[in-house]
């Protein structure tokens, strides 16, 4: 069977953008392999996601709610394995976020298959799957094939694949899976979800990121970054140097030892462009650099750059974006 099973993340039925990326990729793979696109929408409210998942091409939608909230790695692994038993996929797709990082490897092992994490390209050709993924913190890319009889679990880098809605929706036939909680599945279980106190988008999910470096000089001066980010509806980020200096929290750190982001637009303010920082943002579609040092390495990677004083340029940019985006 050459079906593709998409693990579609949602918040109480509100489908996440990454699921649409996965479904678009799944449709392309299914067209090449002659299989169907299936989706699994697990956890509370999954039924509410079915129509949207069908709109993006799912022929079948697997649901399961009971026993999957609160989250437990083992109960979700079992539910996905159960969906795979019904779907019989050649490929299972996750978005390369915290769910995949937790259980994609376990799922692949349970199904005696292979795992390819954080793919930036994937295609099916002559019964063989070809994929490309970054390694060594993005310092190289490896391309590999998979032709095995078992399943390939592939996790896809968010924002690395475009979203495309088909002219006609998929059938979206809903199957409710019976995966009632088993006591040994609760050996590790979430007991509390502490949401960040912020209306700003998450760094790894944002379409636009505005990052500040140590040149900002203080936590107070990081307000210039937050103001620009808010004018753009962006997520604020920071370099390691800024975090180590105490100007921004570790949760904002972008780079080899922080987060990897892949937004459509990355604005680096007062960041010189050390290799370790680039590792976390170099795949951004557009990179803007603002730095008073014309020789800063970041300008070699930037699509657009302003050589100037942060403390003049950032407020001017914030004002200009506010003016232009108001209308």
């Amino acid at each position, binding site marked *: 069977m050459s079906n593709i099973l998409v693990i579609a993340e949602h918040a109480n039925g509100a489908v996440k953008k990454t699921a649409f990326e996965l479904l678009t990729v799944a449709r392309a793979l299914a067209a090449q392999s002659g299989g169907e696109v299936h989706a699994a929408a697990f956890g509370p409210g999954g039924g509410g996601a079915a129509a949207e998942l069908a709109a993006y091409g799912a022929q079948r939608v697997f649901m399961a709610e009971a026993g999957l909230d609160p989250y437990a*790695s083992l109960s979700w692994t079992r539910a996905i394995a159960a969906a795979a038993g019904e779907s019989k996929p050649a490929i299972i797709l996750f978005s390369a976020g915290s769910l995949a990082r937790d259980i994609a490897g*376990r799922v692949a092992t349970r199904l005696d298959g292979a*795992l390819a994490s954080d793919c930036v390209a994937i295609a099916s050709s002559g019964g063989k799957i070809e994929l490309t993924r970054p390694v060594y913190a993005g310092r*190289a890319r490896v391309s590999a094939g998979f032709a*095995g009889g078992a399943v390939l679990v592939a996790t896809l880098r968010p924002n690395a694949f475009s979203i495309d809605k088909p002219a006609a929706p998929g059938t979206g036939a809903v199957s409710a899976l019976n995966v009632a909680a088993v006591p040994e599945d609760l050996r*590790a279980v979430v007991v509390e979800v502490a949401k960040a106190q912020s209306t700003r988008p998450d760094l790894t999910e944002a379409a636009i990121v505005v990052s500040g470096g140590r040149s900002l000089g203080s936590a107070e001066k990081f307000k210039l970054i937050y103001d620009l980010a808010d004018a753009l509806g962006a997520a604020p980020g920071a370099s390691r140097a800024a975090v180590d200096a105490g100007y921004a929290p570790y949760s904002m750190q972008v780079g080899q030892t922080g987060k990897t982001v892949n937004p459509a637009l990355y604005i680096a303010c007062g960041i010189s462009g050390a290799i370790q920082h680039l590792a976390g943002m170099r795949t951004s579609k557009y990179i803007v650099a603002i730095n008073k040092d*014309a020789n800063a390495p970041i300008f070699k990677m930037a699509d657009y750059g*302003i050589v100037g004083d942060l403390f003049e340029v950032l407020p001017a940019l914030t004002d200009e974006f506010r003016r232009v985006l108001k209308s």
Partner: protein
Amino acid sequence: MKIAVCLKLVPATTAEIRVAADGASLALAGVETIISPYDEYALEAALKLREANPGSTIQAITAGNDDALKCLQHAFSVGADSGLHIKSASLDARAAAKAVAAALATDKPDLVLCGRQAIDDDQWLFPGALAEALDFAHVTAVSALAQSADKSGFQCRRRIEGGELVIDAKLPAVITCDKGLNEPRAPTLKGRLDAKKKQPVVKTPADLGVSDADLAPALDVTKYAPPPQKTPGKIISSPAKEAAAELVRLLRDEAKVV
């Protein structure tokens, strides 16, 4: 508590990663190597747990060629009780998990600690695969770890998109470690000297009953490439206000990204 810590030798974060002439491999001979940094948090977590639970033992495990012994030397120098080198020319994460599971199968530890990801393959595969093979619970990317009152498990914190999870985990478990969990200690001079007297156990995968078929790479590598290079773009040198207006115009009209 019987603790196993898995350590992987990887190229240093500052090492140049060059594609070999054949385009199908990387030229890594002679490159500086380190213990994968997230594995260091795992080793430190083991040491702290042994301090808090006297009588506990720490077994450090590594897989790879003889270069990997560097990991065990370091583990000995900070006080690991024993070391296991699974000697093999090269093992991908899936094969390494099979080999380590085979090594631990007959005398399972209570707790396995690993780094959240190996910074060479960035697969996030080994810990979950090992937990599945051992039928252990697992918790991923823990940034805070507290033993439960009855010592039967842990309360773990994990950073995720938009917040943090608190997870209760029962032993036996595989727990993977994230930055911020602790500050790995440096070996003392005495530790380094003591390490020279310690010998690791060396086993091949065959010794552990792992077949060549089990060790075959999961993915068939066809080529390596450097990351896509960007060509330098437009630099604006006007005064702040004009530069800002020009940049906004370019982002809206040319890049169409705002």
